[in-house]
């Protein structure tokens, strides 16, 4: 009962805190006066913008926003890649050398795309300089890039000019991510998370052996990891490690931290378009999807494997930290995949098939709160598609927020629908066709399929978690997932910006009784169905062969026999 109460409390706190942070984000990105900050941040921001030679004016076109985004991201990536390839001795107490090129490339791209998929064991390959200068740096700028894009898209939908990328990136850092991370880091520090540049601690174990305990500037790393929907661990065990997630309280606060910015962004969207009813309904929609997932995963983990129930009780404990227990680990798995964070506090690989199904479902949809900034953007795309599909049924060219949804909008939204099949299904098929030797798949049968699909889905959705039995530190995996990472990040961003910029140029109409209202319960339900049909139905065959088949294989043999009798399996 306790885990359910804790889960409910955490989600309730998210719902309660989202509006105030939403108000704050609205102030930041609509450039409203914030006297407390403006006095000493304005000169800094203005100075920095002047230094890079940007006048801070809004871009005229989507390209005007996209180009600085690509250039700066390429620059960020190049710097990090260089640092990973040549790890200097400075701040590198264990003297790690540079990474192999494909691993360095994959790690850079993975952190640059706000994914943080890790094919390496960080505590055995990265010194503090690389952790700070490459990993943590990319965590901040990739989250800021995501937020910037999210608000550029929101501005477009609300009819405002889409804004200036540099300005948005800066303000996301100075006014949102850096202060919030510092606050959260303080909490982690107090809770016992290390924050030091000291070399690893050498201890004598009870058996008398010698062991190196890696430590480092983890508290701040941890804060931006959760708040920025990054998810990359300072250590390989991620949030299952006591240095990253020491207590039950840090576990719950981390869960909250993953959800809060995407939730607040949805709230801020309502303030931008002057219709909080609309944003509250969208929030309710994603909350409902999250709750369904959470109930499925928590129940599945708590019930455990039915095949083993004669010998084991207490739920599915494989791959779990006993400090958190099966149910809260299930909740975490749903939240981390829904928000595109990808941090883990237990092994998803060892989770029940239904939990994996829920996680994959979240990765395919990308909107169950969704990634930093991109979550609301994808949600708006699905609303737009729902408007287009069903809006015709009221006998008018469909309208969303007073603007007509016409060919250009449908083209961009459709392109976004194509990204996942291209960057998840095609590499999955190639990998599975190549056999286990190429794939490093550690499980036969349906679970093997889940491992491969999950890896690519996690990459394309910029999530970063994985079914870690997979032997993925190979050039094949590093290169193919890098393609999925880049394709899943920058192509949709370009399409989203083009969509939003085209949308804002359309004349806005006052609503009339003949206008389809999107801020109603009825339409929100329609959006939910469209979301499931367009976002996830494509993947139903692989889900059926992967986690669904695995889940069905756990059904009591008697039930299966009964079904088998009914079916004519002879053919």
């Amino acid at each position: 009962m306790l885990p359910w109460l804790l889960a409910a409390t955490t989600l309730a706190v998210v719902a309660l805190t989202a509006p105030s942070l939403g108000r704050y984000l609205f102030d930041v990105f609509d450039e409203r006066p914030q006297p407390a900050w403006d006095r000493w941040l304005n000169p800094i921001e203005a100075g920095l913008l002047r230094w890079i030679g940007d006048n801070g004016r809004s871009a005229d076109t989507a390209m005007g926003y996209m180009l600085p985004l690509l250039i700066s991201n390429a620059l960020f990536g190049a710097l990090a890649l260089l640092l990973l390839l040549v790890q200097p001795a400075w701040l590198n107490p264990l003297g790690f050398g540079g990474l192999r090129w494909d691993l360095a490339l994959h790690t850079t791209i993975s952190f640059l795309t706000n994914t943080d998929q890790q094919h390496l064991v960080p505590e055995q390959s990265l010194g503090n300089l690389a952790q700070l200068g490459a990993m943590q740096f990319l965590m901040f700028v990739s989250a800021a890039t995501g937020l910037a894009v999210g608000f550029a898209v929101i501005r477009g939908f609300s009819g405002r000019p889409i804004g200036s990328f540099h300005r948005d990136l800066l303000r996301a850092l100075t006014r949102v991510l850096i202060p919030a991370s510092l606050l959260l880091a303080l909490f982690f520090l107090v809770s016992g998370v290390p924050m030091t540049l000291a070399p690893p601690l050498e201890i004598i174990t009870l058996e008398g052996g010698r062991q190196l305990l890696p430590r480092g500037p983890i508290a701040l790393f941890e804060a931006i990891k959760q708040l920025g929907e990054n998810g990359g661990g300072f250590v390989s065990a991620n949030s299952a490690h006591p240095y990253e997630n020491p207590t039950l309280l840090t576990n719950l606060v981390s869960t909250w931290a993953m959800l809060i910015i995407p939730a607040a962004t949805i709230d801020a969207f309502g303030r931008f378009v002057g219709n909080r009813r609309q944003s509250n309904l969208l929030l309710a929609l994603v909350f409902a999807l999250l709750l369904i997932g959470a109930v499925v995963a928590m129940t599945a983990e708590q019930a455990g494997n039915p095949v083993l129930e004669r010998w084991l009780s207490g739920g599915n404990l494989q791959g779990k930290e006993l400090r958190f227990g099966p149910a809260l680990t299930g909740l975490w798995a749903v939240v981390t995949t829904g928000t595109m964070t990808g941090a883990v506090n237990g092994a998803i690989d060892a989770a029940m098939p239904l939990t994996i199904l829920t996680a994959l479902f979240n990765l395919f949809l990308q909107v169950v709160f969704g990634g930093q900034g991109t979550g609301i953007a994808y949600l708006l795309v699905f609303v737009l598609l729902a408007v287009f599909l069903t809006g015709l049924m009221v006998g008018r060219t469909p309208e969303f927020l007073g603007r007509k949804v016409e060919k250009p909008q449908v083209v961009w939204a459709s392109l976004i629908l194509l990204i996942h099949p291209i960057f998840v299904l095609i590499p999955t098929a190639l990998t599975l066709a190549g056999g286990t030797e190429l794939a490093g798949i550690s499980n036969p049968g349906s679970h093997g399929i889940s491992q491969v699909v999950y890896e690519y889905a996690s990459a394309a959705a910029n999530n970063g978690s994985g079914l870690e039995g997979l032997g993925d530190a190979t050039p094949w995996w590093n290169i193919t997932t890098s393609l999925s990472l880049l394709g899943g990040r920058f192509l949709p961003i370009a399409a989203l910006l083009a969509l939003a910029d085209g949308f804002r140029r359309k004349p806005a109409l006052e609503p009339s009784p003949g206008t389809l209202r999107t801020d109603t319960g009825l339409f929100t339900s329609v959006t939910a169905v469209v979301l499931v049909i367009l976002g996830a139905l494509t993947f139903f065959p692989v889900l059926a062969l992967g986690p669904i088949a695995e889940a069905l294989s756990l059904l009591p043999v008697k039930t299966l026999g009964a079904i088998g009798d009914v079916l004519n399996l002879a053919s």
Partner: protein
Amino acid sequence: MTTTARIQFPRMPRGPRQERRYTERPRQQGLVQRAIMEAFRKLDPRLSVANPVMFVVWCGTVLCLLLTLVPNLLDARATAADRGFNALISLTLLATLLFANFAEALAEGRGKAQADALRRTQARTEARRQRPDGSTEMVDSSTLRRGDLVLVQAGDVIPADGEVITGVASVDESAITGESAPVLKEAGSDVAGSVTGGTRILSDQLTLRISADPGKGFIDRMIALVEGAERSKTPNEIALTVLLAVLTQVFLIAVATLSPVAGFLNQAPSVVTLVALLVALIPTTIGGLLSAIGIAGMDRVAQFNVIATSGRAVEACGDVNTLILDKTGTITLGNRLAEEFLPVGGHSSAELAEAALGASCFDQTPEGRSIVRLAEKQGAVLPFDAASASGIEFSARTRMSGTDSPEGTEFRKGAVDAVKGFVRSRGGTVPDELDGCFEQVSRLGGTPLAVCRGGEVFGVIYLKDIIKPGIRERFDQLRRMGIRTVMLTGDNPITAGVIAREAGVDDFIAEATPEDKIAVIQQEQKLGKLVAMTGDGSNDAPALAQANVGVAMNSGTQAAKEAANMVDLDSDPTKLIDIVTIGKQLLITRGALTTFSIANDIAKYFAILPALFAGAGLQALNVMKLASPKSAILSAMVFNALIIPALVPLALKGVQFRPLSAEQLLRRNLLVFGLGGVVAPFVGIKLIDLALGALRLV
């Protein structure tokens, strides 16, 4: 003189709409047979490539047919035993293609029948073309070019659309309007200056300037549109095609990648079943019916006796936010009749009647003639010799008309303030009671016309306006559909306000000039609204061109007809409301079938997937308890094929449109087509499965 009188009445079509056809009802017999023939002809890949969804089905069909002939072409495990099943799948796929082709062919066939009927109105004739030197030559009507001058005499068929240059003649337009009474055509008149090819001149002769090259007239454009020959897709149809194409690609990837994924479990399905899965998932229902819906929409417009020059215009009708309507002829019956004389300034009613008669003796408008009638009924006699007097025509600038008697006395009648100005300019004074009479008449919703003789005001004529019965209900419907109505009238603001209130329009503009029309349209368009209007006069042409949907009356001038994107052959301004309904119906039908088509996928997954991967332990997903994997796949495919002809009537007739609010419409249509789309295939596939089992086909 009687013919002159006729023409002045705006022609109102009479009788129930279905009897007002100008063309015979298109022949229905033989349509189906011809459509079946066409369905086979459309299997030509060069034709089917235009529709991406159906082209995928086409490719799948060819692949399955090949695999029927050579079962182990792509898969070494396959044996000749698979041939039967492959053949059955190939046949259902072929049926799917044929059904979709049939739907399109049927819609086109109906359009062709309509087009043939239209074409019969423009039989080729001989025409007398005028040479530059004034002599004439006989030429075939098809050789006439825009700008040619043509002489037509009593008994001739008018060879092409044109404008009257000289002459007065009566013309029988029943061939296109259904009105049996002849109408007068004369040069330089707004309502009588244009003639349409295919009509017959009954008396006298006219010189015409041909206004359209052969094949470019209104009727020709309409023929092209209903035949679907030059049918360009409408913007909304294009957007939908894009989405359907992308969905098809998405499912193409999903199905193509399935083979290696299932191969990992040693469950690689046969190519034929994968093709079946693909065809089941891609939106074939809407893909197959999309063009039929569009063609049928144009056809419906034609059946309403309206010539649309583009499909885009018809679709835009559904989006219209504001209707701009002329009061006269649309909201009120065209003819205002003189009801009463209200004398002022100590004049008697008889004196006023005499002055009114004097001012109206040359006025051949219905109003003018009704004044003459009323005055004569009251015993008034014309105070001068009409033969040597001269008439002063009404103009929008002076807003007065009248007569100058042989002695030079100026009899005038017109808008009260215009007459006031005239009286003052002649040194007269305006009695105070005039304003009282003006208000009295205006408050009754009537039009007050002041009458004066020189500088002396005699009184006011009360012209009674009659609001069309049932118009209020129509405006209420429009309001529920979210469409704003604006009434334009030359009346004074009080009269206009009374009429507007009684008719239930949302807004009105009184004392409107033709320029006001454009201003109102531009103002609305600036707010992003789509504006529809009707018009007939030459001075309406710029406004008709500016409006998103401009409907010209067939009785109107050539300029108005060319500026408009639709021409109403019945010249019935209220028909704009029907056209809006057709536009909406077109969009609803498209949306409803799309929703239905996509909602179908859920059930199809549950039918096909467990069957496809029976060995992967997915039997529990077989919620429909279908007899065998093969029967399940075949049932889904048969359902997929049969649903197309089942929906053809709906696609051709259009989903019924009710004037409800958007919210109510959405709820209703979602229930029918959304929920129906989820449930129907579960029921349908199960029934087909039972039937296949009974037939022992698989």
